[in-house]
């Protein structure tokens, strides 16, 4: 892999005289991409630098959870970096030819900051920073949701990056075409009738559309593990592969779900502002209600559940034998009581 990385980086740094790759190591965690950290010692005629990088690689096709494009992710990250102050890693490029790294891949800068965000919660060593970090996280999200879509998505590919027929010409069309996507996908994820709560949520979402809202760029996997922090500030929002045009309430709903799954409490901070939603409303004036967040918790859960459950179904059907997908059945079950509560299941409070 080192030789391929050198070749890739020589294309990025054409003036470099020599490049040495050091300390290549896989980064554990992250369920949808294979990630490796490495350092590149780059020697120019007049200087030498040690640059920290991450290689983000697609998993084998049959085991993939989200079939998204590294090229689109690269363009998005660079557009965010150039047109906003949202902290993101610089993307140095992508290689879509699977012959090079085994699967399509991209190379991004490795940002400073602690990625073990559980350190902020439950008596962790950085718990004293949690209010400041989450305050900044909320401000970053507000800036992302306020970004000019025409600049961020000049190529117009973020309306339907999964190529499943999503129509972002209006909020209503976006919601209706997304319901169609969820319901049409159900047979591909129905590995057991016990998954029925997902079907129930898709049908309920379609019956109970909330008030419309301006569509925004959404992160799409805004969760307690997808940021780095240092000294009370977010140093990077990471993992942009599910980013797209959508309803901004989706990110709030998904964070609510992942707070439960991750045993964290992002949504309860910053405490002096009354929590994440209250601070978000203060900054945006959108007056999003807890009921709307509940709705988009269901909606956002559905958005991730469709590809995740479909990948589990492919594993159960024997199309591949990745263990992760069996583990995800257990791990994702933690969200079911919350779904049942939001759907007003009798006996679930």
């Amino acid at each position, binding site marked *: 892999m080192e030789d391929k990385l050198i070749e890739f980086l020589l294309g990025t740094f054409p003036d470099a005289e020599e490049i040495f790759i050091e300390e290549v190591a896989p980064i*554990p*965690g*992250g*369920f949808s991409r294979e990630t490796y950290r490495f350092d590149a010692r780059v020697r120019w005629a007049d200087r030498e630098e040690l640059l920290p990088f991450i290689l983000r690689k697609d998993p084998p096709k049959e085991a993939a959870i989200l079939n998204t494009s590294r090229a689109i992710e690269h363009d998005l990250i660079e557009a965010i970096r150039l047109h906003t102050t949202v902290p993101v890693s610089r993307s140095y490029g992508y290689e879509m030819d699977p012959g090079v790294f085994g699967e399509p891949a991209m190379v991004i800068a490795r940002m400073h900051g602690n*990625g*073990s*965000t*559980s350190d902020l919660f439950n008596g962790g060593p950085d718990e004293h920073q949690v209010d400041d970090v989450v305050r900044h996280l909320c401000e970053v999200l507000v800036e992302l949701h306020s970004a000019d879509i025409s600049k961020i998505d000049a190529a117009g590919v973020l309306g339907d990056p999964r190529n499943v027929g999503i129509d972002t010409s209006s909020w209503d069309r976006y919601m209706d075409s997304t319901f169609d996507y969820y319901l049409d996908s159900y047979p591909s994820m*129905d*590995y*057991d*009738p*016990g*998954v*029925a*709560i997902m*079907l*129930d949520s898709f*049908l309920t979402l379609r*019956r109970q559309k909330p008030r419309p809202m301006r569509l925004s760029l959404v992160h799409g996997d805004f*969760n*307690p*593990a*997808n940021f780095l922090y240092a000294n009370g500030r977010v140093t990077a929002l990471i993992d942009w592969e599910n980013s797209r045009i959508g309803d901004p309430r989706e990110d709030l709903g998904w964070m609510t779900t*992942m707070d439960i*799954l*991750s*045993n*964290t409490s992002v949504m309860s901070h910053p405490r002096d502002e009354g929590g994440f939603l209250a601070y978000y409303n203060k900054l945006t004036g959108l007056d999003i209600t807890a009921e709307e967040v509940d709705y988009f918790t269901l909606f956002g859960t559905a958005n991730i559940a469709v590809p995740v459950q479909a990948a589990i179904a492919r*594993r*159960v059907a024997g199309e591949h*034998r990745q*263990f992760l997908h*069996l*583990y995800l*059945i*257990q*791990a994702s*079950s*933690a969200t*079911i*009581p919350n779904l*049942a509560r939001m*759907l*007003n*299941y*009798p*006996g*679930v409070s």
Partner: protein
Amino acid sequence: MNTTPSIDDLLEGLIFAISDDIIPSLGDAKAYATAAMMQSVLQEIRQLLPVFDAYLVDEHNGMTRTLRDAAAALGDASGEAADHVRERASTLGQWSDLPAPPDREATTAAHRALGEALVATMLDLDVLQRAGDTRADAALDVVRGHFGPRYLRDVATVLVGAGMLGRG
């Protein structure tokens, strides 16, 4: 509870994961041997699970019968030891036979068919709800009333620890 994947599917997945993701990274001979032994024990569990309940019942009933038959074979043998054998035959040996456990495959197939019927019912109720028939709301509550406590019990049974592994 979900019947798919089955307990056997999960155990087989563990055996595959040890082969595919763990053994290739092991450099230590003892660790390699332990991994292979773990696979062997997992395979033993796969073989035990389908027959465990049936064998338990079969052997229970066989042991009560054996206690009775052994005492009968003694005839009128006398002495303290013979009395002990007859005493066991008249107490433990009189326990009732246990019924054979239900056929797991048949039970699983029936469970799945009923689950699929509830899913189909949800879809039909949605058609009625969208047409404005509020009685379908009540009917959906009945279906949800079945699934709700069941989901809570399932989650309490399968969940391990707090938080998803590998997430920051």
